[in-house]
């Protein structure tokens, strides 16, 4: 596995914190996803080897949690809330704006790779809906115009190739 030195360091420090090595499977998967942007089959086998598990035991975990990704995503990750309050406040209208702006459907990645759009369940900010998460940042009280502007910025950054963050992940 071609992981960055600090990721490796973090992983090696994490494992001994648990009485049973296998308990470290979640933190390790998070670390790998932060490093690689997603969790490949190679990474699953690597984590399994590291913790003395069968690859399928790691695969179980990866497939159980929607936040573990098995395919690369766009440069930025947009998760739009679709739970009741946000939906009542126009969340689905925001979805349409996002789909138009990034020329892809919810659940897909923009053709230019600038972002991946996903639905999220409640992001715990119901009084300020609709809300979305842009990577690790919460954006509240969304308006259609504000979201168009946000999309323009993301696409522009992507076109310039400026390296504001790692490839499509939460770092």
């Amino acid at each position, binding site marked *: 596995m071609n992981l960055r030195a600090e990721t490796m360091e973090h992983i090696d420090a994490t494992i001994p914190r648990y009485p*049973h090595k296998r308990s470290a499977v979640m933190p390790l998967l998070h670390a790998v996803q932060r490093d690689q942007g997603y969790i490949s089959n190679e990474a699953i086998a690597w984590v399994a080897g590291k913790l003395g598990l*069968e*690859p*399928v035991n790691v*695969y*179980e975990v990866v*497939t*159980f*949690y929607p936040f573990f990704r098995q395919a690369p995503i766009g440069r930025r990750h947009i998760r739009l809330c679709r739970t009741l309050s946000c939906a009542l406040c126009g969340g689905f209208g925001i979805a349409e704006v996002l789909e138009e702006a990034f020329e892809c459907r919810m659940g897909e990645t923009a053709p230019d790779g600038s972002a991946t759009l996903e639905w999220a369940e409640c992001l715990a900010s119901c009084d300020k809906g609709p809300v979305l998460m842009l990577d690790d940042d919460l954006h509240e009280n969304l308006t259609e115009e504000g979201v168009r502007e946000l999309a323009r910025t993301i696409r522009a950054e992507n076109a310039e190739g400026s390296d504001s963050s790692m490839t499509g992940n939460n770092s």
Partner: protein
Amino acid sequence: MATITIDGQSYEADPSANLLQAALTLGFDLPYFCWHPALGSVGACRQCAVRQYRDEEDTTGQIVMACMVPVADGLRCSIVEPEAAEFRAEVIEWLMSNHPHDCPVCDEGGECHLQDMTVMTGHCKRRFRFPKRTFRNQYLGPFINHEMNRCIQCYRCVRFYGDYAGGSDLVAMAAHNHVYFGRHEEGILENEFSGNLVEICPTGVFTDKTLKHHYSRKWDMVSSPSVCSHCAVGCNTIASTRYGSVRRILNRYHHDINGYFLCDRGRFGYTFTDAADRLRRPLLHPDRERDVETVAEPAEAMKRIREIFSEATGVAGIGSPRASLESNYALRNLVGSGRFSSGLPRIEHDATTALLEAMRNAPDGPGSLRDAERADAVLILGEDPNNTAPRLALALRQSVRNEPIRADAGSRIPRWHDRAIRDFVQDRKGPLFIAWPASTRLDDLAAGTHRAAPDEIARLGFAVAHAIDPQSPAVTDLDDSASDLASRIARALKEADRPMVVSGTALRSPAIIAAAAATVHALRRTGSGGSSFLAVAPEANTIGDAMLEGAPLETLEQQLESGEVDTLVILENDIYRRLPAPATDRIISKARRIIALDSIATATTNRADVVLPAGSFAESDGTFVNHEGRAQRFFQPLPPAGDVLEAWRWIGRIAAETGTSKQNEWDRLDRVLTALARDCPELAPARDAAPDAAFRANGQRFPRAPRRFSGRTSILSHLSVHEPKPPEDSDSPLSFTMEGHSGQPPAALVSHYWSPGWNSSQALNKFQSEVAGPARGGDPGARLIPGNGPNERPSTAIPAPVPDDDQTLLAVPCYEVFGSDELSARAPAVAERIPKPYVALAPTDAEHHGLDSGDSLNLLIGELRVSAPVRLDPKLPPGLCGIPAGMPGWSVPHLPARASVVT
């Protein structure tokens, strides 16, 4: 017992059970999915909802899951209360929302727990109008068919396969409405208990692929109670047939033996009965040296046998550990006990005799699988249960939880509360120690392993006995690690409430068996009450054969040499599998005439003058004596077709034909058993293993066919529209038709599990005295070896340390669950799983001889040359090599033996 109230009626119930168990035991029909009597409760499926009331005053109550409610005095509940009933119907409706309703094309249809439960709850109208979720199925190997769309997410498959059987390649993936039970990628399910998924799955996700090749509905199959013929555990089975062939094997519950589960060898090995090389007609070989055979009429074959007998100076019989007790006894009776051989070479014969001796001397008699499951400290001395007695390995896998549960707070958690018990136990494991030359598939549970040569394993055993009780002789020159291990084992066994020592003939070492016996007796002397000795033997009737006390094959060779004997009758035994080919050739060529009886064509039958077609387990009635000395009767699901007869019946006819006994004296099973009981008092209880042929209920026989059997007239309509007279059965109280007693037969005669409303094998709970308890009216079989109390017995000498020898390797037998058993290896599905020939070698030895994995290794063992690719086994100690025993086509008999590497 606790008094509980269900729907206003008072009942007595077992307070160690949960409410669901209690309700089923009391005969209520309460639906369930995730609960399984052997797997316990997790309270996941919400199907067994009932309304529970606080007390007599409480009229509101609350809905609870019966499987999670402990039975307690004063418990009040209602099953029929409308809201609870509606709740159960709604749960089914949710579960069915994605179920494809493909019952007519589903193998499970007609014996489906999901169908039964749906009908039981009354859900009959579908409201779900949307597309159903669908999955891609996986190829799971030759045994199991996968159809994920039918899944209702009860999780029983992974709970059995992973938690219970220790398999790691079947898991639950994803979440929500797309949970997927399967492998990481397509491929063979590796665990040797995968076949139980067929019965564990409440619907048709996992079905029997061997049945699929010749499918028939449950209600269309004629079945009989049978006993597995593929190892000495003697799991009880139901063999089902249609159109004259065996279609499948199902588990038949035996409280003390197999419980709810079988191994894959036992479940899928049955198709050897239909293999192309089955013998169905008598054969004559005019010239034994040349491969010319003629098919003969039975009368012609009998005439030839009469000639052979009249010309013979002496006739000797070779019995077989895979032939029934009756057949072996009939043969012994035909030739006289002085000329009867057990059919084993001396090396196996001596080990088997030592094992039988140890069983007879065991303080409480030989232990059962149920004892193994309940043991809280286990020492396995010279056995590899996963491969030699697979079902035992499954029992031992459960045993390692007993010590942690017993230890502290665990004892307060009810045993049925699976989730809580597993959370409590976590990864803690009770003491299980394994002494075996190579690695085993129980090593992941072991608190300690000793991988060494057979004599070193025996020395460890004696050292354990000495550490438990200094009265046992000490072992000198034991190295430090072995002696540390011996004291750890001794401590664990002494501290246990129910210690167990497992040993057997796998390494053909009487010393190992003596060491195991010494340990058991040492425990007994030091006051460990429940110490138990569990004997492992290789073949279905090894113990029964040994109890007839025949001589080893080598004695027969001497008798041939001296001219005392010149004619052999060989019963269901391929002696080429027992002795090296040159030695077998000598026996064969010294015998002037050979008469062989077998169900399959073997190297031995190919060299016989007369071959008589004997029935397999499917065409025979008979008795096997299992590893614990329990005589168990198996009944034919098929009337013998063509010229096939039970071997004991053929031998009876030979006896009549040659004037050794009166006509008709041996033509019924009960007559053979009566004679056996007269001649061999120790074996007399075998007669009571099942009711005799005259047994009736209300004057009626017990039907082999279910009451809904169809096609009786049309089944032969391509030949004739006249329905033939049903075959008669003079040997058992069973009939071949659906006519007869409609109630439950005694457990030994149960041909299928069915009860009104319960079409699947889960109907079993109606056949037990309590859920997961003994069968109603007692479990079948008769124990022949009662045990000897705490009697002292002299132990044999402790073997000397194995000397270092860098010139030769010690070749030891190793075993393969798929391959080492002669009969199942002929079943196509099992044959797919047989590994390629190999010789296991320690990496250091391989390096020493300049060999790498896969390189061809040539060995000279005595007069036998063996050549096979090297398989590196880092767990194997240097100086040893492991050769799989009994593999089809290249069996290497007569191990352990010194082997020299030939370049």
